């Protein structure tokens, strides 16, 4: 009974970090940002070798049956390398969607394909994080019509899984007739977003949950925790780089880290960011244990990391001086990843409003 990563969890993080150190240099990120789909195939296969795709898939379905805490540990490592892989949906949220909302038969069918890396499932939530007018879905029996916006991990998916406002989810092939995908590059070049339209497409409907909307929210919350972990990793990478730079860069005859201005900026970043490690673990753990606080923690972890991430990204860039603003340093890939994470699955303002509603803090 203790509040710390277990030996296995630490090793998991190490192994992913070590793999990424070797296989996800900044050049790979840069290349993806220029032309990629958000899924660098070499990385995807390498992670498969590490068993990452099966993380949340039960052992009987070919996975390792671990929890969101482990997923958060991996997400942090991926954020730390700005790694372009569709982890959020395909590895973290999709298996949870099947476990929460799918029938036994559906789980039998889909989970092994997820664990095996064959199914890469892009996901969208319609009616969950504030509508801006463009999205609306309807299911006529098993025929899906309408459109979903800001669909995630949609660069190279095999399938789409979209949640309807009532908590049902529909899953269908990415190439099915009647599916049209408008893929948009984003500020974070490594991760596109898609608008996907469905024209009466036959879909498999996940509707086994006792409380479908609650089940959908659990999946959304899990996604938020994963995004928080990703931002944590990215922000920590930026802070680490800022500190290293501050120890090495000389101006006015002194290493700049010896100036209080720079030193205090680094101290401020560390003071903001360091508690976030425990916070993200705690939020993930609350998901895994279905604690009464689980929703509150997910909303707050996402919102808090969104804010801290933004601050750290700006300050770490500033510590680098002009170098931080260039593509050369590559710092901005993390900055933009943090900016992307902030906006998807509900920005911090939305997450906090949900936290307020959960606690009855309303008029």
């Amino acid at each position, binding site marked *: 009974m*203790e509040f*710390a990563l277990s030996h296995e969890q630490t090793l998991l993080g190490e192994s992913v970090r070590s793999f990424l150190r070797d296989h996800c240099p900044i050049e790979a990120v840069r290349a993806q940002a220029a032309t990629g789909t958000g899924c660098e195939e070499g990385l995807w296969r390498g992670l498969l070798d590490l068993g990452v795709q099966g993380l949340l898939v039960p052992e009987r379905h070919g996975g390792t049956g671990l929890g969101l805490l482990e997923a958060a540990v991996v997400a942090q490592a991926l954020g730390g390398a700005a790694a372009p892989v569709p982890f959020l949906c395909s590895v973290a949220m999709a298996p949870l969607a099947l476990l929460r909302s799918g029938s036994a038969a559906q789980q039998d069918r889909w989970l092994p394909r997820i664990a095996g890396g064959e199914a890469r499932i892009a996901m969208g939530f319609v009616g969950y994080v504030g509508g801006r007018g463009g999205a609306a879905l309807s299911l006529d029996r098993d025929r899906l019509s309408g459109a979903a916006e800001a669909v995630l991990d949609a660069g190279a998916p095999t399938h789409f899984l979209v949640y309807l406002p009532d908590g049902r989810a529909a899953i269908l092939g990415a190439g099915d007739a009647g599916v049209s995908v408008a893929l948009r590059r984003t500020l974070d070049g490594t991760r596109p977003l898609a608008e996907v339209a469905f024209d009466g497409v036959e879909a498999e409907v996940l509707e086994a949950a006792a409380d479908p909307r609650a089940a959908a929210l659990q999946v959304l919350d899990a996604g938020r925790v994963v995004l928080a972990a990703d931002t944590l990793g990215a922000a920590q990478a930026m802070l680490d780089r800022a500190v290293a730079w501050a120890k090495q860069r000389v101006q006015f005859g002194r290493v700049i880290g010896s100036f209080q201005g720079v*030193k205090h900026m680094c101290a401020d970043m560390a003071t903001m960011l360091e508690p976030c490690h425990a916070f993200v673990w705690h939020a993930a*753990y609350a998901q895994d244990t279905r604690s009464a606080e689980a929703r509150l923690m997910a909303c707050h972890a996402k919102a808090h990391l969104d804010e801290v991430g933004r601050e750290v990204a700006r300050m770490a860039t500033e510590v680098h001086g002009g170098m931080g603003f260039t593509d050369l340093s590559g710092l901005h890939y993390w900055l933009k990843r943090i900016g992307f994470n902030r906006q998807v699955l509900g920005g911090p303002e939305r997450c906090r409003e949900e936290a307020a509603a959960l606690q009855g803090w309303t008029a």
Partner: protein
Amino acid sequence: MDLNFSEKHRAFQAEVREFIRRHGPASPKTGGGRKRPDRKTLDWQRLLIEHGYAGRTIPREYGGYGAAPDVLEAAIIAEEFGRANVHPGIMNQGISMLVPTLLEVGTREQCERWVRPTIRGEIIWCQGYSEPEAGSDLASVRTRAVVEDGHFVVNGHKIWTSSAHYADMMFLLCRTEPDKPKHEGLSYLLLSMRTPGIEVRPLRTMTGRAEFNEVFFTDVRVPLDQIVMGRGHGWHVANITLKHERMGIGDAGKLTHRLQRLVELLRATKVDGVPLIAAAEFRSRLLRLQGEVLAWRAHNLRLLTDQARGEDPGLRRLIVKYGGTVLGHRLSALAVDALGAEGLTALSQGEDAQDDDAANWNNDYLYDIGLLIGGGTSNIQRNIIGERGLGLPREPRVPGTGGRGA
């Protein structure tokens, strides 16, 4: 990672709740800054120690409860007391700084003599560190002690000595080896404030209380065995003390508790019939603060685990005072805003009074400004975080001085 409430912990939580249900009504009010504990608080403290909710992990032989460190138990206590807005036990410099220092580097005799009455709130300690010319720059203290017929004889002048006017004892940083380099010439003495030759002059603070003092020493005699570690080790001991202070001041339990009080205040305060917790700006600020408190709460659990494992958490520990103090101040600032104009009239009735909630918030707000300064300004804290925590280089020395820091 395992925070599962085992059967044992579920039972423990029930036990804490039962204690609060039964005894909570006898709790002194919370908040409001430092004062000498009154009878009610002393009784409460003894009750807490008896049940293991204060002095929990301090050995029984020294007057504590003698429980094994257990991160979850500690968390349960903090959580339940905070949630119920029940007094979490006395927190003062003796308890948060001196006791852990003695347990770490004191002799058995020193522990036996001082730990018990200190954790009970019966002996109040003050900290003899700062001097007029050595505020942030602690290592340059000039108060000196020389050995004369079996005693240290102390002469000098301390300032910013909180609680000195009602303290029973002082832990004193003074210069005993004037010929050695700055940091190697110091010793850490324990002395009674009743010793002849001590004069305490209150320094009234912005809270209207005399929370600080100047203390003048004229040939003050301290028995030779009232030194912690040996001569010349004062800087080392003082840093151990400050390490524990940095743990203490930003304490996440206190933050959780304060957030809880703040939520209650915003729920209860209605303007034009609308509770402030539903008013746009107040709620937005509260939500931001709640997120931050949750982060520190989790961080605190992690630190407790580090502590239980006997690991030095390094950076994680170093950030606590700075981060926690700033956040604590922002919590009380929101409370002061919620109180509005009417809150301006909520004044403390004095050091020994049971003030109402509004007065306590006003005091917390002002006192927190002191905390931002006390124990080293925020700038010093950030130097420590940057240098010891992140390994950034110190300020270069300026010729002809020992200059660094600020």
